[in-house]
Structures are given as C-alpha cells and as structure tokens.
C-alpha cells in the first residue's frame, strides 16, 4: 500500500546517509535491502535470536525491532563497518582463528555483541562474556569457540593489534599464491 515516507538522516559505518523510508520500515530491512549491508541477518523477527544485532550509537540493538524512522540522526555500525576497507578487525580475526564458524549465519550477531562488550571493558570475565553473548543463538553449537574468541580479541586489542591486513590473512589461511 502506498504510504507517506519519512526523511531520515543516519550515519552508517561512518558514512552519512539520507533516506526516505515508510514509517513502518524496520532497520534490518533498511540495512539489508536499501543499503545492501547483508551481514545483518534475520532469524526470528522478534528480538529473540540476536543475529540482527547492530550498534546504534555504540549500543547493541536488535535491528528487527527498530524502526528506521524512529532513530533519525543515529550512528549505526554493522559488521561491514568494523574495519576500514581491506582490513579485518581484531574481533573478526579472533573469530576466524578460534575456528568456531560453522554455518556462519549467526556469527555476525556474536561479533557485534563482542564489539559492544569490548568497547566497555577489555578484561571481561568468562561469566561476563557468557552473559553478553547469551543474547545470540547458535544452533550449530559454537558457543564455547565464540567465548574463547572474545578473550583472544581482547588480547589483540590490548596489544594494539586492532586491524589485520585482509590480504595477509587470506594468504595465511586460504588464498596462498600458487606455484611460488
């Protein structure tokens, strides 16, 4: 049905975005289909599974329960915005290295929660990590790996290793140049 739109200004992953959206448009749809940020996944549409979590003004928020029109002026970070072009963020690196990724559909929700937690403290206790990451469901059962990843990420960040070079990582893990 044709509806009136609302003008919204957002800062998404550091870039200014001007949008005209229907008042009932969910943030998850704005991100996935208007801005093509498909790291944001839908699992339940009710704020239960936590895989659509993004950072809104630095705090984790279910994008499936957020109306885009209601957050005019907000700063949003998605997985795509964790590291500059060509870089991999320490948290992503830690998730890669602890080898917890199975189907990978929930992973972004865990990474975003890890980011929110590590923005708060770089010395989270195991209980704290569990508590924070319990926001997100993983049906393959990678929880233990993800908890370990947060510890490792904290270590990297404390050591000042915030970004890793994407090409270097790819070379190390799966795109070794053949024949040299």
């Amino acid at each position, binding site marked *: *049905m*044709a509806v009136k739109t609302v003008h919204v200004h957002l800062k998404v992953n550091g870039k200014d975005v001007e949008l005209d959206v229907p008042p009932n448009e969910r943030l998850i749809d704005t991100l*996935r*289909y208007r801005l*093509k*940020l*498909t*790291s*944001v*996944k*839908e*699992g*339940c*549409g*009710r704020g*239960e*599974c936590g*895989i659509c979590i993004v950072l809104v003004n630095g705090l984790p928020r279910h994008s499936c329960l957020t109306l885009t029109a209601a957050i005019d002026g907000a700063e949003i970070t*998605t*997985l*795509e915005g964790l590291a500059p072009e060509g870089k*991999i963020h320490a948290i*992503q690196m830690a*998730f*890669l*290295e602890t*080898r917890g*990724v*199975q*189907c*990978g*559909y*929930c*992973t*972004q929700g865990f*990474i975003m929660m890890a980011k929110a937690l590590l923005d708060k403290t770089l010395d989270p206790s195991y209980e704290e990590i*569990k*508590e924070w*990451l*319990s926001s*997100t*469901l*993983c*049906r*393959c*059962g*990678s*929880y*233990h790996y*993800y*908890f370990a990843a947060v510890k490792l990420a904290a270590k990297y960040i404390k050591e000042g290793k915030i970004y890793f070079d994407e090409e270097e*990582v*790819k070379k190390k*893990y*799966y*795109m*070794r140049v*053949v*024949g*040299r």
Partner: protein
Amino acid sequence: MSKPEYVDIVEKVFSETKEKKTEEFRVIGKRIVKYDAIPKILGKPIFTADLLNLFKDVVFVYSVRSKYAHAWIKKIDVSDALKYPGVITVLTAKDIPGVNDVGYVIPDQPLLADKKVRMIGDTVALIVADSLENARDAADLVSVEYEPLDVILDPLKIVEWGGLREKEHTLIHDERGSDVLSRYKIRRGDIKKAEQEAAVVVENEYRTPMQEHAYLETEAAIAVPEPDGSVTVYAKTQCPFDTRKAVATVLGLPFNKVRIIAPPLGGGFGGAEDVGNEIAAKAALAAIKLGRPAAVLYTREESIIGHSKRHPMIARYKHYARRDGTLLGVQAEIILNTGAYASLGPFVGWRAVVHSTGPYKVPNAHVDLAVVYTNMVYAGAFRGFGNPQVTFAVERQMDLLAEELGIDPVELRLKNILRNGDRTVHGQLLDHGVGLEEAIRKAVEAAKWYEKRRLYSQQKGLLRRGIGIAVFYHGNSIGAEGADFSTATIIIQRDGSIVFRTGLTDFGQGNIQGLINIAAEILGVPPSYFKVEWPDTASTPDAGPTVASRSTVMGGNATLVAAYKLRQRLNKLAGEILGCDPDDIVIEAPKVYCRSDPNLSMTWQELVEQSFWKGVPIQEFGYFRAPPAEWDEETGQGAPYMHYTFGAIISDVEVDIETGVVRVKEAVTAYDIGRVINRVGADHHAIGGYIQGMGYALMEDIYHAPDGRVYNTNLSTYHIPTGLDIPDKIKPIWVEAGFKRGPFGAKGLGEPSIVAIAPSIANAIAHALGGGFKVNKDVNKHPLTPDYVYSIIKKHGLIKKYKG
C-alpha cells in the same frame, strides 16, 4: 567377483595408510581453517536471501496457510485478494502445469492443497505481489470455505498396542485408505525362549518429543525464468538434485530445464530437505507464470509450521536378561508420529527399526514399528533420523536393567556390546572396525566415571549431582533406503589453482572441508589451492543427497578416487620429466621432486603447465557406490548398512530437587569415526551435536493445541540452548578403528553426534534423583523440563527424603 576400480582404489589407500597415525598426515585430521570462514566472518552476501539485492523486478510470493488442521476445502475465493494494491496474481492448485505434489518419498503432499488440508501449515494459495508486505496483507483476503474434520494428534487414536493394528478413525489420508504409512519388523531367534530363560524382565513405556531444527536461516528461494523456458532457482536446500526433481514435477519440465543452485545454508540438520523442494517449487511456479524473478522468504513462524520436524515416538520395550546381565532378548512396539505427511517417514521408520535394539548382541528380538499419520505438522528428516528416539528407549532400559540387577551401568554395557567378529541383531557380521569398547573405556576414564558414580550415590542434600552413560551405533549413509552413490569433480586450472565441484551441500557441518582435506592430502597440495563451487545441478553431476552422515564417506570416497587418478597421471608425467620412477615422485606443492634425489625437482605450476603440452588431462571425475545393502522385510535380517559409527556419551548433571531444574555440568563424548578427516569439523560435531542433543533432552518440543495449531511458533516460545545453558566443558574423544571402505578409513559423524545425548542426560538425572527402581522408571520421556522432573520428585516424595 571382481570389484569396481573405485572400490579397489579406496581399499588400496586404506590399506596403505591404516597403520599411519593421524598426526603423521599432512592435511588429514588437522585443524584447518574452513575454506569459507573468511567470507563468513566478513559478513559477505553468501546466503540465499542475501542474493535478493542482485535481482531486479522481483515479485514476492507469500503462502496462504490453512486455518484448520484437518478439513475439506469447499471453495477458494481469491477475488478480494486480487484487488489488493500491489498484488499481481494469486496462484492456486489449478495454476500448476505439472503434478501438484512435493511428497519426498511418496506422492502424498500437494504443493497447494485443493481438496483437503491435513495440517495447520498447509498452503492453499500463493499471493504474488510487488512487495512481501503487500503479499502478506493480501493473504488475509483469500476466502476459503472449509468443512472441518476430526483433528487427530495422538497416534494411539490411529493404532493400538498389542500388534499396532489400525483402529476405526476419521481417515487423514482417505486417498490411501489407511493412516499407517509404513510398518517394519525384526524377527530374530525365539523371543518366547528368551522370556522363559530370563531371570529378569524390565518393561517400560517411552515418549520422545517433536524437535524443531531451528536453523537460524529461515527458508529462502529465488527463482529466475530463463529465455528458453527453463528456470534457475537459488534455494536453501540440502539436496539440490531432489529439489530439481520436485520443481520439474510441479512445472511439468524435464530435469535439464530446471537448474538448482544451492548457496551455503545457515544450518540444515535434515530440515532443509523437503521444505527446500517446496520453497523452490513455489518460487519457480511464480517465476514461470509471470516471467519475472520470484522470491519466497519465510518468517520464523512460517518456517516452524511449514517444515518437517523430528518424529515423536511412543514405544513399549521389554528387555530379558540373565542374572549376570547377559541380554537374552528385546521385545518392542514402536510408534512414530509422522504428522500430516510422509516426508521421509518411511526411511526414518526403517532406520529406527534397524537401530531399535541398540549396539548390543541380542540373540532374540521381536520388534514391530509403525509410522502413522496424524494432523500434527509433518515430521521428516532430522539429524539422527529415527535413531535418537529408539536409542533413548534402549539406553534407559539398560540403566533400568542395571539398577534391577545391581550392576554398574558401564559394566552391563561392556558385557553386551558389539565387538569385532560379532553379529548385529540383523545377523550382519561386523568383521572389523568396531571401536565401541575403546570409546566406552576412554569416555569412562576421562569422565572419572567410577569415582563420580560412587561419590554421587552417597551425596546428601537438595542440589544433587548425577552421572549417566549412553552408547549407540549408527549406520552410515542411506543403506537399503535407495541407490547409494556420490560424485566429485576436481579440475586443475592452468595456473595450478584447483576448482572443486560436488553436488553435496555445505550447511556448516564441515563436510566439504573434509573433502578438500582428502583431495589435498592425495594430490600433495595445500587446501588453500582449492576453490569450492556452489552445488549447481547444471554443472555438477548428481552426488546424491546431503543426508545420513554420508558426505565424508560417500563424497569422500568419490573425491579420493578422483584425486587418486589425477595423482597417478601427475606422478607419471613428473617421473618422465624428472627422470625417476612415478612412485618416487613427491608432491609437496609448490615443490615437486624425486624422493631418491631431491635435486631433481620442478614446481607444481610447471608440472601443471607441462600436462597441457604433453596431453595429460588434469581434470577428473570421481564416483563411488556403496555395496548394495540387504534387508529382509519379513524378518529384518540382512546387512542394512555397510558400516556403523559407534560412540559413548557420559553426562554429569545437577538436579535442583526443590525446583526440578536440571543443569548439565560436564560431558564427555567418545566417537569411533574410523579416522578423523577434518578435526575442526569433528570437534564441532561432538560439541555442537551435544548442545543440540541437550536441547532435545531438556527443553525442546513442538506443542500442538487440541485443534492442531502450534503454540510455540517462534524462538521466544520454542527454546533452544543459549550460551548460558551449556556446560562449560564438553570433551570430545576420538577413536579411530578404521573402515576399509571409507576414505583413509573414515566413517560418518553428522548424525551420530546427537543420537545418544538425551539418554545420557536422562540416565544422569535418574542417578541424581536416586530413590530406587520406581523413580528411575519414571524418567521415561523427554524433554525433561523442570515441571516434568519436579512431578517425579513430588510423586516420590524426594524433597522430604533428601531434606532430612
């Protein structure tokens, strides 16, 4: 009888490497980072719904579901829906050009119901609109006139104990004339004799729940009409070749005019088998009708009422044994509730009956199993496929028997388990590779079984610990269910990089990385050389379905055969170029050299380039077919599967006697998988399978209202384990007893990793509750939710008993 070449190759590689320790391999058994882990942690658009952004002018297809769980359809009026803004068309059964059926094993399930609805999730019409929102809104405007019928949810209204005869009832599948889908039996020895000789008989009834897969990616399909009248469908499906068959059937097209591409799946667990066919058919129908790309995207609510579940089971078991614990016989009646449609029910029933007496020597057995229809949401494939249900009953029975006899549960199992040289209840000789005893012994040691069992038996107070064991076996691949083959293609590119193609799908389980590991090990290249193509029915030969723990064994063998043949040719060519014997060639890409004189060397890239100049083809297709299985319908005798995975699980739990709340504190899993191919994937199965099994044991069940509606249609009401529910420690242990017809001796693990979790937890809970045989006997169904556990505590006055 001469063996096919591919069997020879597999057996040769096994015999040459069987003494080799897994640590000594270059790639096999190593903790390799998954080939697709980087795009996944970067959030790249790789899942089906992510691809939507690539298409223009897409129409959205929304399913109008039934309002009744059982009713005749009198009339469908879509005129109001057609007037809704944005609606382009509304499709009903009469719009289907081919056959209106998506039944997986038998044709009993219309894509669009036109005569009758049999469950709440049945689709009666498809709204096609310019947006998903408009399509959903218009769904309410489709007016369907129903004549409601009796809703039957309890399978005991369909069949009765004492032979499982069908009772008088309102038929759900009147077109079949019966609501018993299929029956299976095992007849071995003489159960009357076992009854006469037995010193003890243990008898109980068991119930297991309807588990939902709850994969986090809900169903998605995008169909694109092609100029030549064919259709390409990107779909969340585990089995692209079966999906192609379903779409072709519905559209009335030959197979070569339907192309299915299966992007990575956000979880499958068996649930993305038949619903994959259904969503692909719905999208393809709209795409063909309108000549525009069409998308089907399910919400969680649609997913839960619209795809198959794990069959709930009700069973009555009698175990006969001697005073010393030797099993004399098993008698059982088992009912599996397949809900509204057969789906894979006939095969689930068969797998259940095959495993219905557990991994034990059972000289006398009399088992009857019936798979029956009801008006529940339909049940189909789910990791374990009938085995978790019967294993729950069998392993609870073993613990009851142990308590009755005063024997330790581990000792009772060790007395009766299958070992090399034993025959299964089907009369199948297990002549090698039975690692069950080793698995039990290793698990017992790692879990400190004897120490804890003794300690917990003497504890006092209201927070009580318990430790329980369960063991199992699980036939690999599809056995006597059907033609059991797989394929793989390896194409070495001119720059030395490699394209790998298989029709087996990746839903996170680590199978495809396993195939890469096998190919890399044989070829002598790093796994990083491989690029894995998405399964595509247009470019990959039929590899069979991605089910039944068959990828590593069947796909692995096909991969091994292809890699082996390539390696033979490359060795020969390198030998000619470097001037040494082909057997002397070592490939450690990028280096290629002669073992006897490493100075004679070249690079992998040079070798590949030379193969183009010297006319040596460097692409190969691998095929493997399992030896045909044997099964006698009348007696359940034969060799149902070519081999079995074995395992032992020990769970350590805490039960709060005042609330009935159960927490798993620690767990040990020991699996004999022949050989660990992909260590990361294997650990993931052991741990992830445990967590999913723990959900099955403690919290998960789909609850139907009396009218057939589902109460828990989202994750807010259907609870799966979160990070706070799981034990801090789940220890995987690997036993590698080998299997001569597995790649490097490997066996499957996907399904086995959930089979015995629930009974190990139930046995631990029974131990924690204490209180003797009667209490133990009441732990006879799951999920073991706090209210159910508390009902047992209350019934037996355990609070009073332990408070004092």
